[in-house]
């Protein structure tokens, strides 16, 4: 440490040097930030611009619209979503909209179900003591969290057989059930953390006033925990929206979701990059909007429970 103090003293003697070092450090920080922002955003930029390119722009590697290529609706036309085709009937568009709808139903439905049963369980685990055979609260919580380890491949085949017998194969309800199972541990994790930050005295006062436990939960705890619920909900929707593995195995024609459609187009389209880009752009657009507008909640959801 002695040497560093000596260096610092000598630097203090020459304020010009110190100032120069400060400025160069700032420059380095901003350069690194901009570099990573470029890494993060370029693929997204590339996808959106490519959806407006024609073949010649793709092969010549043009990057900036209006500067080195003239935007064209070609990609969106092949999806039936360009201005001149939007009024006409289009089989690709109705297919796309059906997949979009499936994705919305599956992800929102599963997230809602997971939030309802997950918050209840998380509240119970944070407030009461349970005994379930030899299991206590800690073991029950661990049981829920341990589901996170389970890889989808282990569940895939049994679910396929189970769903076939229950006539749930290729239905939205089937997807909702699997996705609920998938996000439930995360929801319970986030919500338990949220409930534990709420002082127990609030409910005790309500119980003294004659509230039932359910009354206290709905009238007192739930309003306070709402931001946490929103965070868990948004995170669940994102995870379900992006899920591919189960959707690829458990759905075929009716309940196929957007990622499966994107994946099935990848091979067949060959070099028609503009339509693939348009499809990818349309598939990620809702998430980009959510990410930009609700970033606060996503960060809240991700960090709940992990950072004490």
């Amino acid at each position, binding site marked *: 440490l002695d040497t560093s103090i000596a260096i610092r003293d000598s630097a203090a003697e020459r304020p010009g040097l110190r100032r120069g070092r400060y400025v160069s450090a700032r420059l380095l920080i901003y350069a690194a*930030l901009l570099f990573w922002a470029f890494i*993060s955003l370029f693929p997204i930029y590339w996808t959106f611009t490519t959806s407006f390119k024609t073949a010649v722009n793709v092969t010549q590697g043009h990057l900036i619209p209006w500067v080195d290529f003239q935007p064209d609706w070609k990609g969106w036309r092949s999806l039936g979503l360009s201005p001149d085709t939007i009024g006409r009937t289009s089989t690709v568009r109705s297919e796309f909209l059906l997949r979009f709808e499936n994705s919305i139903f599956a992800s929102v439905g599963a997230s809602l179900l997971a939030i309802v049963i997950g918050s209840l*369980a998380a509240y119970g*685990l944070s407030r009461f*003591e*349970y005994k379930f055979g030899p299991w206590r609260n800690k073991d029950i919580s661990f049981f829920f969290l341990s589901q996170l380890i389970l890889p989808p*491949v282990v569940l895939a085949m049994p679910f396929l057989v189970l769903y076939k017998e229950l006539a749930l194969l290729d239905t939205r309800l089937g997807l909702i059930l699997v996705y609920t199972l998938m996000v439930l541990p995360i929801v319970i994790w986030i919500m338990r953390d949220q409930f534990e930050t709420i002082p127990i005295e609030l409910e005790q006062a309500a*119980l003294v006033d004659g509230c039932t436990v359910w009354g206290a939960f709905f009238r007192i705890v739930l309003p306070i925990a709402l931001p946490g619920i929103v965070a868990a909900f948004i995170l669940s929707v994102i995870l379900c929206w992006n899920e*591919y593995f189960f959707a690829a195995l458990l759905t075929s024609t009716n309940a196929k979701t957007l990622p499966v459609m994107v994946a099935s187009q990848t091979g067949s389209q060959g070099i028609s990059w503009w339509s693939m880009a348009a499809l990818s752009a349309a598939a*990620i657009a809702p998430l980009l909007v959510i990410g930009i507008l609700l970033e606060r909640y996503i960060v809240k959801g991700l960090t709940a429970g992990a950072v004490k």
Partner: protein
Amino acid sequence: MLKASPLGDDHLQSVAFGHISPSRKNAGRALIALSSLLLLIVLLVQILYRAGSLSAGFANWRPVLYAYLIWATALGAGQVLIRGEAGHRALFLLPALLFTISLVIFPTFFGLYIAFTDWNLSSLTGRRLSGLDNFRALLHDPYYWNALRNMIFYVLAVLVQYAIAFGLALLLNADIRARKFFRVAFLLPFMLSPVAVSWMIGKSLMEYRFGPAATLARHLGWDSPAFFTSPWIARFSIMAMDAWVWIPFIMILLLAGLQALPREVSEAAKVDGATPWQSFWQITFPLMLPVSVTAIILKIIFQLKLADIVINVTAGGPGGATDTVSSFIFREYRDRSNVGYGTMLAEFYLVLIIIFVMLLLHLVSRWIRKVT
């Protein structure tokens, strides 16, 4: 049965423990017994119908599901009737518990059964128990062991992701302008579906002929920038894509940890004349250990499920160099319809994962106790 009782001071105490009349208790017990009976009858009828000893039955097992739902509802209502207040408490936990148990127990046991059959969807003979045949085949399957070995590399890549994410978190935590913009920009890759990323990056940006990444590589002096033809480069490309998606996740956790650090500590270090380098290694990094460990373990757990990107970009190629266990089994199911064998591979992998994660958690907690 599930019992909820008020114990301990930090748990919620209830005031009113009203008396529950015996007739109410009996009604509750009768409700549970009746619904259990209904479930059993429906189950039995369906099993006998399927076995051929009963001529009438249901077309599929859906009615059993409905009977199960009725049973679950009756169980909850019965709890309230029999145990009053304590039953109300059990009701909070019951839905999630029943849901998870019923959706996990069945697949686990049925999966174990499938794993010991020679079931192939495309074969005409149906499924037969085949004992340990699948397991023996697994031991001699070079592609499976190759996939397992790849998983080691993929898990090790988490450490690189962690290092980059830590750097980014430090940058975001520095005194900068437009922090909100950078945070949103850095987070966005995490929101995107891996399938879309597979196309956006793997199939177009890194495309050999026209992809900008390939063009850039040519400018930098790499003559034939084929990202997916030689084994190690392909593996690195997959790792890079996975890192692109997941670094924001680790970064957000670390950033939250950095923001929770007490400011006085680093300021005191500054006053004492520590260089930023010293204050990072001797103060920030040790204080961040718990968050770091949480982030790394969570990411490793997610990494063990890595599949989407591999399936959609390389399908495991070249020669299995990028295969993960999940993507390998996915192809076993989808392309070869080899259900019995694929399930054996999956169950074996699950056992390995459980041992690995348990060991990891154990070692890490011991190490942290030693360090702090």
